[in-house]
């Protein structure tokens, strides 16, 4: 019965959505806002990567909300899974190669992560991607030797202060008499690291925040004891 209704529903939904989408014209978006942003982004935000300028400039508060969602998810997961058990996961410790690889890879991944974060406004990539890589870097040792545990104090400190600094940068702009989250100290020299003013800082905050959240999520998932 459930199958039947489900298939019926799927068919109906797919048919409906297709019939809707058939009315769309592909490949020629109106781009009212888009083209405008392309025209003004370099001056207004000093970012070459326009997606970055949208994420951190024009729609910065979306990013803030998104960080909050990650934070909320992490906190909720903490609430759900209870407090962390220091006992490690039940799986057997990884082999020699994995351990060595982990200890070798760790600094490398950190570097890559920070590079991606800092060049978010120049090249593809940015806080999210870099943050994920940082999280992976933090997480690798846990996979390698399950006994090792993250330093949760520092992790939650990073969680808190990264997010806070994002907001504080925004409030700083308000103190300067600008609007909330308005980008500042934009140089006119495009294409350098410093040209985008506070954007890299914001992205750093984002990256640290994302990394910390994800790392704590992962560690929580792996570190509470498994059933039976």
């Amino acid at each position: 019965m459930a199958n039947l209704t489900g298939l019926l529903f799927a068919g109906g939904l797919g048919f409906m959505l297709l019939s809707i989408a058939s009315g769309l014209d592909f490949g020629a978006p109106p781009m009212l806002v888009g083209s405008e942003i392309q025209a003004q982004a370099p001056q207004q935000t000093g970012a070459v990567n326009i997606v970055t300028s949208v994420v951190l400039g024009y729609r910065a508060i979306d990013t803030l909300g998104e960080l909050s969602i990650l934070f909320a998810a992490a906190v909720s997961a903490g609430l759900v899974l209870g407090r962390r058990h220091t006992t490690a996961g039940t799986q057997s410790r990884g082999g020699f190669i994995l351990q060595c690889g982990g200890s070798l890879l760790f600094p490398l991944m950190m570097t890559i992560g920070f590079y991606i974060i800092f060049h978010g406004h120049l090249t593809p990539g940015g806080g999210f991607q870099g943050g994920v890589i940082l999280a992976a870097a933090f997480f690798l040792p846990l996979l390698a030797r399950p006994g090792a545990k993250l330093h949760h104090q520092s992790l939650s400190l990073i969680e808190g202060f990264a997010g806070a600094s994002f907001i504080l940068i925004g409030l700083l702009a308000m103190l300067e008499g600008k609007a909330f989250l308005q980008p500042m100290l934009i140089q006119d020299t495009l294409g350098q690291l410093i040209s985008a003013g506070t954007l890299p800082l914001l992205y750093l905050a984002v990256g640290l925040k994302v990394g910390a959240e994800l790392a704590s999520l992962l560690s929580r998932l792996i570190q509470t004891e498994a059933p039976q």
Partner: protein
Amino acid sequence: MSTNLVLTIALPLLGAFLLPVLMRSSVAIALWSGPAILIYGCWILAELWLSGFTQPVSIAIGGFAPPLGINLYVDSLALLFAFAVQLLGLIFWPFTLDRESARRQSLMLLLVAASSGLALSGDLFNLYVFYELAAVATFGLASASGSSAAYVATLRYLILSGIGSVLTLFGIALIYSQTGTLNLAHLAQLAPQQLNNGLGLAAFLTILIGIGVKAELFPVNTWVPEIYATASTRLSAFLAGLLSKLALLIILRLLLLIFHQPEAAQVILILGILGVISGELAAWRAKEMKRMLAFSSIGQLGMIFIAMSLPDGKGMVAVIALALHHLVVKSGLFMLAEDWGGAIQRLRGSAKASPLGAALFVLFSLSLVGMPPLPGFWAKFVLITELAGQVEPLYLLGLAVFLLATVVEASYLFRVAAILYGNPAEETLGEEIPKSQGLALLSASLFGAGLVATALLIAPVGESLQAIAAQALDIDLYIGTVSPVISGGSQ
């Protein structure tokens, strides 16, 4: 001055981020930082309101002119709801101090921030983001009660709202690919040419279903009884009282500003009628307090949807009046249910134990049913006079359903009242009668006092409601305030 409004969103977020760290350093500061932030938010809004707030304002975030950047649109309605958010956040603050209180409180702050964003934001996708934030915070708080049932209920809620968010994203994609903008005012400008077609309608319906999950719209409100029965009463009060109204506010804005197709209103009407029928009937034989309140709030929101579906904003006053009334009354009822949760039969004779609580329950029930001098009557009166004015038979059906539902509502509410005032049954003489007391009773009596005050000042309140409705209805005012202009518009 009005730019401070951003703080009502930013400060709770800041507090939420820092609370776990603070909690580690000094518990006292951490415990009081949350309420302090909320009080400050109340103060900001109250100051703005008292400083002769008449014309709506638009605040550009990041200093980018609206269609490019995101803006907050603040008119009397939004201000009212933003104030309600801060105030109710304060009233429903999770004061309980235990190992998890830092997490719970920071989630509460996130919820408050998201709610303010929902009330103020003027950008479609930004609304979606805040909506998701509110959803995630709600999941956390709902599962915080720690009972196994709470986890299942939360998961079902999560999956349902996940479906909703997928549909919402789909609708947003449709709208963007049609118009190339996300700003509500800009959309309102472009809608008559570009969204007044089947595509726009489809976008609206998908978004309606998505947002309707929180607004307790009929087909997607199955999470309501479970969550309200398992989650903490304060959270239920916040959800039923405020968050549903905020989701409703979004739908209202979309309907007023962008989507003028009659079919949209008709779908809302049908769903509203179904909601009233299902909610009130299901509440009629509910055996526990919270579940009864949950079902009845489904019914009430259905009534608001019926009011919303009235053509060209006729029902605006009714929507606002019903929403505010339900906000006050249902919050108060849930506050009473904090001590009186569980089986209704258990409450036999509670009136002797806590006369004030019983009196408040009767007051709220009377107002909910629409007993004349109380505000509920006026809200319902405005609605049915508008409904009876319609020629469309569907609206008259709505009228009939509305009246019958009121009878059902009265019968189950007053069954409870009769039980409260009845004498304790023999078999229950042994155990102690649950009595409503403490903070819950205090806040409940706050709501009751507000209700009575409104009843006494009904005439000025009615006028200001009409003014608010008129302002919210004025599309040109909205567009003019935000003034989205594309200077070097391509195309």
